[in-house]
């Protein structure tokens, strides 16, 4: 496990040096995006008014207070990344995003895009919004303010972290490691309780499996229509 202090924008080499389990502290700028912002860019075909090239995306919907022309922080925290998962490969390939900061990880498909283009997933401590808010020095700009609290937020950060490299650019995911180990532990728990596999078949109501994304595109980019 290594500790890294990184300055944004990030280049491909810096990202490829990171290994699953390492810890990162970030300085510079990150862009806060979430559900509606992604829908606006990809499903409604709007071109973002700012370049994300080399920057990390933070999955957030901040509480802000507008004082005159300035946006002041109330509380800024991080949300579950999986809801934004289907946009991740395009953000990497077409917009040059190098890192995603969020909680609970992304899909296999996103992991493949990270490996291919050199990007990573940095797990922040979900719920620790007090610390995160203090590590964000300033909300420098809010693009598409009509979407607030789901606009594009340009945030200047100083020492954002600890961030844990949970999915790296080498195809390694800590979530997979933990999930596989948990499956083995489950088998042991079932055995101790005398539960056999029959129970799952008796209960039509519930079969444990990874929940599929709500919507999956057949073809890459098929959803983005006639813009750019």
């Amino acid at each position, binding site marked *: 496990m290594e500790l890294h202090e990184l300055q944004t924008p990030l280049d491909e080499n810096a990202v490829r040096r990171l290994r699953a389990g390492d810890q990162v502290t970030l300085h510079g700028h990150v862009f806060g995006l979430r559900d509606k912002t992604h829908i606006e860019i990809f499903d409604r075909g709007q071109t973002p008014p700012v370049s994300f090239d080399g920057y990390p995306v933070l999955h957030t919907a901040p509480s802000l207070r507008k004082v005159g022309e300035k946006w002041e922080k109330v509380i800024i925290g991080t949300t579950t990344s999986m809801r934004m998962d289907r946009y991740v490969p395009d953000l990497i390939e077409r917009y040059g995003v190098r890192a995603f900061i969020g909680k609970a990880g992304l899909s296999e498909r996103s992991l493949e895009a990270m490996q291919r283009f050199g990007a990573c997933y940095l797990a922040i*401590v979900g719920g*620790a919004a007090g610390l995160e808010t203090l590590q964000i020095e300033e909300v420098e700009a809010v693009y598409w303010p009509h979407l607030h609290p789901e606009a594009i937020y340009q945030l200047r950060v100083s020492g954002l972290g600890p961030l*844990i490299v949970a999915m790296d650019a080498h195809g390694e995911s800590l*979530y997979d490691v933990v999930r596989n180990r948990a*499956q083995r532990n489950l088998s042991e728990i079932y055995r101790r309780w005398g539960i056999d596999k029959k129970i*799952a078949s008796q*209960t039509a109501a*519930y079969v444990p499996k990874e929940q599929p994304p709500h919507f999956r595109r057949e073809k890459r980019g098929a959803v983005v229509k006639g813009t750019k």
Partner: protein
Amino acid sequence: MIDFILNNHHDMKNVVLKQRTHAESEAFPFAAPETGAPLDYGVIEDVVRDLYIRALQELPPDVLEALERAHDRESHPTARTILQTILRSVALSQENKLLICQDTGLPIFQVTVGGRFPFDGHRLKGALSEGARRATQEFPFRGSSMHPLTRENPQTSVGPGLPVVLWEFLPEADYLEILLVPKGSGSENMSGMALFTPADGLEALKKFVVDRVVLAGGKPCPPGILGVGIGGSFESVGILAKKAVCRPLGIRNADPLFAALEEELEEAVNRTGIGPMGLGGDTTVLGVNVEWSYTHITQNPIAVNYQCWAARRARARIWPDGRVEQGF
């Protein structure tokens, strides 16, 4: 009179509603027995507003202590870092008067009505809703509730069907107790229920709980509280699970049968190794609380309501003479 009802449906409704206005219910025989003075429900509205803000800023001591204990015994280095970060963030929120988490949640109230409290359910519901709205707009913090189809957010935290109110009645008590849980969605979205059959037995229920935790992984911001409802009907099993989440850590179910089940599930869930934020570790939950009720002879229902580590909760006890005690 009958003519009036038949011919003036609309007016009749107004008449009925009018009977419940502030001025008229003060004349209604719901007065505090000790003082004889009617309780000012405006006081309750203020209490609720302050309760919501306090719930978002302070972590209950039982949750904080459980997180500290989890940190002290954690053997996995990444998990230790995460638990340390959680404790640091909570302390910084206190110091800087920041909210603990940006998810201000759906307001869930558990209201315990004492048998000797001057209770007016209609006005109390109004006070809960107004208090939650005022907290949201006067602080102001992000209103996290919206219309399910149009997705419009009025930034009030309340609306049709919200806040959620769970009722309890305590015949011998003089007071009214309001517990507010601002329930975040990261954990709420990982909750689930199943209607098993009697043939599936207790094993199916236990399996459902551990499977649910593994399926949820890091999404519900573990280590939190697992509220489990057992028995009842389709809708009531979910309410039981929510009431289980409302119970402070360290208090076991009064029934030894269910207390033992809580301990067994807690031990099993922590053996999955999901760990803090789903990145592996010794602590996956701080506690498992089970609430139960009788069910149908053909049924075997279970519900699991997940609560994140930021298991926020604030409680106020209101006495008929207007005294207010604050707690968690």
